């Protein structure tokens, strides 16, 4: 494990402190894109998801993720070692919180796992029970997240593809496009299927009814806060997982801004052309998708490539949202399009644009295959089993009255009129 210089240590700590802003931004976006009668529930769910994820990650998550060079479970095939699960001690025993590299990784991972746990909340909005959210977050923080994080960041087989098989630098995922965003996004997809669509979202003919978010200002403010959080996430990730020099923070910041900005402009243009006027919520999701996609390789690519990544990410979001709508997938927050599809694009883009060693694209392809072939069935299976023992969807009556009144007993906006969109269906 590398030892950080004085400058790197200070920049890394400052960057890690920024990361919770990404979660704050996501919480505001998910709340704004949901219905007004579930707004307090959405914000409380975000806090609960972060809290439960932190606790479970403390108990077992970090032990199974492990760190590069630490103890791990592995097996040997054709003379090559495959490290598949960390074998550190439970409840962070043995970790000293003294500013060492391991302690900084632990700190960053607590915020990262909380961010990943918040992603599915956008797709399950307006119909996912609070206790079920807590249980599902525990599964993510205890099983799926640590498993893939070990493979990508903890010295697992994906990170060893470069040294063992000569595939580029091994699997690259500086800011967590795969380990945080795609893992969260695939869980979001699983939840939309397990929970089912909101009542009245789809007509019997298959036509989709528009259910606009209740507060676009929350959504756009969330984007601005998330941008700061992503700067911290990508910078800390680059220093801790890619051994980047602290001076790289300049390139990371420029690439983040360019990718997010280009993605948002692409979404604005595309929605403007398709619908006659730009769509604010899709533009906001395009902005986040740009951040998601570039986070994989932000410390290793030139600004021109960041623009290319952002441009594609901005086009992906409106098209993917429309496509999922046609497939009767009800994702109010756009979490699948932004985090799963955008994250997968970011992983593949790193294979295309990071050229310093041959075979990088194959390493990225292996990461994408692992996410789709292992993490997705695993997260779907775990949440499906959870749904068997504890029904995750709220009752029809609860959906009609809103989750605020049904689960919390009080609304977020008690003195203002709330929309009655449910009654129209």
């Amino acid at each position, binding site marked *: 494990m590398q030892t950080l210089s004085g400058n790197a240590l200070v920049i890394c700590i400052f960057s890690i402190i920024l990361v919770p802003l990404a979660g704050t931004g996501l919480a505001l976006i998910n709340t704004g894109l949901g219905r007004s009668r579930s707004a307090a529930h959405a914000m409380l769910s975000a806090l609960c998801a972060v809290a439960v994820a932190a606790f479970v990650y403390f108990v077992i998550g970090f032990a199974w993720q492990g760190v590069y060079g630490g103890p791990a479970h592995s097996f040997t*095939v*054709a003379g*090559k070692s*495959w490290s598949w699960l960390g074998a550190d001690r439970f409840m962070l025993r043995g970790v000293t919180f003294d500013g060492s590299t391991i302690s900084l990784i632990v700190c960053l991972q607590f915020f990262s796992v909380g961010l990943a746990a918040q992603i599915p909340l956008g797709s399950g909005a307006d119909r996912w029970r609070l206790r079920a959210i807590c249980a599902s977050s525990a599964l993510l923080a205890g099983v799926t997240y640590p498993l893939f994080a070990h493979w990508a960041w903890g010295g697992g087989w994906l990170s060893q*593809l470069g040294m063992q*098989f000569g595939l580029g630098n091994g699997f690259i995922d500086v800011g967590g496009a795969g380990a945080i965003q795609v893992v969260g996004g695939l869980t979001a997809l699983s939840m939309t*299927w397990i929970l*089912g*669509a909101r009542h009245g979202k*789809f*007509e*019997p*003919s*298959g036509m989709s009814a528009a259910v606009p978010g209740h507060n676009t200002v929350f959504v756009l403010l969330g984007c601005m806060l998330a941008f700061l959080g992503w700067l911290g996430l990508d910078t800390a990730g680059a220093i801790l997982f890619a051994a980047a020099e602290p001076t790289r923070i300049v390139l990371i910041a420029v690439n983040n801004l360019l990718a997010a900005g280009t993605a948002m402009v692409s979404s604005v243009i595309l929605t403007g052309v398709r619908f006659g006027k730009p769509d604010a919520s899709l533009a906001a999701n395009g902005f986040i998708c740009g951040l998601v996609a570039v986070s994989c390789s932000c410390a290793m690519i030139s600004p021109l490539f960041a623009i290319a990544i952002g441009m594609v990410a901005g086009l992906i979001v409106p098209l993917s949202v429309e496509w999922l709508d046609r*497939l*009767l*997938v009800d994702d109010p927050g756009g979490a699948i399009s932004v985090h799963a599809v955008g994250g997968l694009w970011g992983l593949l883009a790193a294979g295309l644009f990071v050229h310093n060693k041959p*075979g990088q694209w*194959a390493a990225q*392809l*292996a990461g*994408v*295959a*692992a996410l*789709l*072939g*292992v993490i*997705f*069935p695993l997260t*779907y*299976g775990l949440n499906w089993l959870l749904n068997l023992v504890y029904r995750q969807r709220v009752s029809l009556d609860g959906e009609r009255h809103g989750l605020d009144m049904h689960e919390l007993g009080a609304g977020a906006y008690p003195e203002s009129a709330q929309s009655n969109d449910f009654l129209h269906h």
Partner: protein
Amino acid sequence: MKPAGFLLLVAGFVLVASALALLPSAAARNAFMLAGLAVEILGFGLVFRAHLPPRGER
């Protein structure tokens, strides 16, 4: 259809991992990795199709 889709997803990954572990030639390895990803995409399509609700239940 749903279990078959998930089975294909896992099978695609096994193809990719096997290609990495067993094939020394870069060309063969890349071809098998792409084939594995194609199998996963097929499985993903099946899972999507399996989740389309019947018309009466929408």
